[in-house]
């Protein structure tokens, strides 16, 4: 048996899929398998998720016993790791801030962090402000996408 630390990516993905399909399978049971004519809303979900559970268990066993990708190999080291984290975190930051600040400010903040990975801070600031305004013009003004804005209208 492996220790918790030696568990790999395959194990976690298998568990993730197992949980997803398990929840859907469980919900599908209560959904009506067959109606008067033909399958009900639970018919295909039950079959598909049932099969998925079996396959996920197989994958889980394989990654526990045979081979798995160790977590240490999943993420790159050093700067690359920070780059990945920033690229994943920046859009989440955008999503959190936009309801309060409107598009332009949220986009500036997000872009600033992203540009900062490759440029000096003053350049990053300039680029993020410029790009935010250009994108706002294209999407909001030209393409009329109703992007969320603040009280000032941007």
């Amino acid at each position, binding site marked *: 048996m492996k220790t918790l630390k030696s568990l790999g990516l395959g194990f976690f993905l298998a568990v993730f899929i197992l949980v997803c399909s398990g929840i859907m399978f469980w919900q599908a049971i209560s959904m009506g398998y067959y109606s008067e*004519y033909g399958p009900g809303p639970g018919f295909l979900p039950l079959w598909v998720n049932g099969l998925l559970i079996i396959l996920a268990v197989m994958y889980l066993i394989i990654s526990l016993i045979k081979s798995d990708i160790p977590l240490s190999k999943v993420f790159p080291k050093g700067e690359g790791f920070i780059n990945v984290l920033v690229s994943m975190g920046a859009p989440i930051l955008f999503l959190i801030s936009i309801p309060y600040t409107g598009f332009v400010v949220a986009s500036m903040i997000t872009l600033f962090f992203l540009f900062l990975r490759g440029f000096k801070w003053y350049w990053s600031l300039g680029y993020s402000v410029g790009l935010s305004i250009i994108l706002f013009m294209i999407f909001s003004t*030209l393409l*009329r996408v*109703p992007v969320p804005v603040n009280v000032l209208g941007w």
Partner: protein
Amino acid sequence: MKKKFMSILLVLLSVILIAGCAQGGSNTTEKTTGNKEAKGVDWPTKPIKFIVPFAPGGGTDLAARTLQPYLEKELGVSVVIENKTGGGGWVGWGDLATSQPDGYTLGYLVFPNIFTGYLNPTANRQETFDSFEYLMSHHVDSGLLVVRGDESRFSTIEEFIDYAKKNDIAGSSGGVGSSPHFAGVQINDQLGTNIRFVHGNGGAEAIAQLLGGHIDVGFLDYSSSRDLIKTGELKVIAVLGSDRFSKLPDVPAINEVFDTDIQKLLSRGIAAPKGVDPAILEKLNGALEKAMNNPEHIEKLAELGVEVHGLQGKEYIDFLKEQEASMIELKEVFGW
């Protein structure tokens, strides 16, 4: 190098051109901004958002876009249509119900589809009938009972009902609780027929299935089936509801033939979220009434095969309440 420059120039030029077009479009609407004498409230002062909960190009969208320019003219500000699709229309309607009741967000409603959203318990929605201020009914589409032109088993509504009582037949539907399904369920309920519903994605798909012989009867609106009716590919055997349809004066209305109380296919209207200032509502209603009675607008609607309905206020609410009641009666049939 020169080539590259040229191509960039080309792209830029076209973008500017398009931008110009877009600008031109909005300018014309702004220009009509009359010198509106402010009566009581200072409204409207900025563009109004008009939520259409179905995709661009569909029947609902087309009808809304027919009204839009005339409403803009009356209100003096631009009315921006926002297609917010999903959830059988409820993504848009839910959004309308929860938006700020300041008169700057309006929405386009479709009945009876809207009832299914809150009557269906699995939808688990907070909104109810009272989440909206019902402004004005735009139009009613009676809906037609349509079979294939070369159908040999039945050629009149009487023969059809007779056949459907003895045999299982397949009918069109846009999903549970959609207007065609509701119409069919009423027929099953009141006339004892055995129509099964092949739930699809609405009008166009139903027509294809009908022509291909995969279903036996369609509950369709006139605008989508008009041409095929003219060529005889499709045959209308009855109009839903109690009145005949002006474009097809020879086709009987179903309630005229049988002693039934079957509703018309659908109606569409304009609403605001609950709680709008009554003074604004009054202005809005006035503008809507004028816009709808614009002769050009009436003519454009006629092309879609419908007429302005125009109910307002309490009359409109009573009309809707009546429809809601007949849907609630059939709750069990829908499995709610």
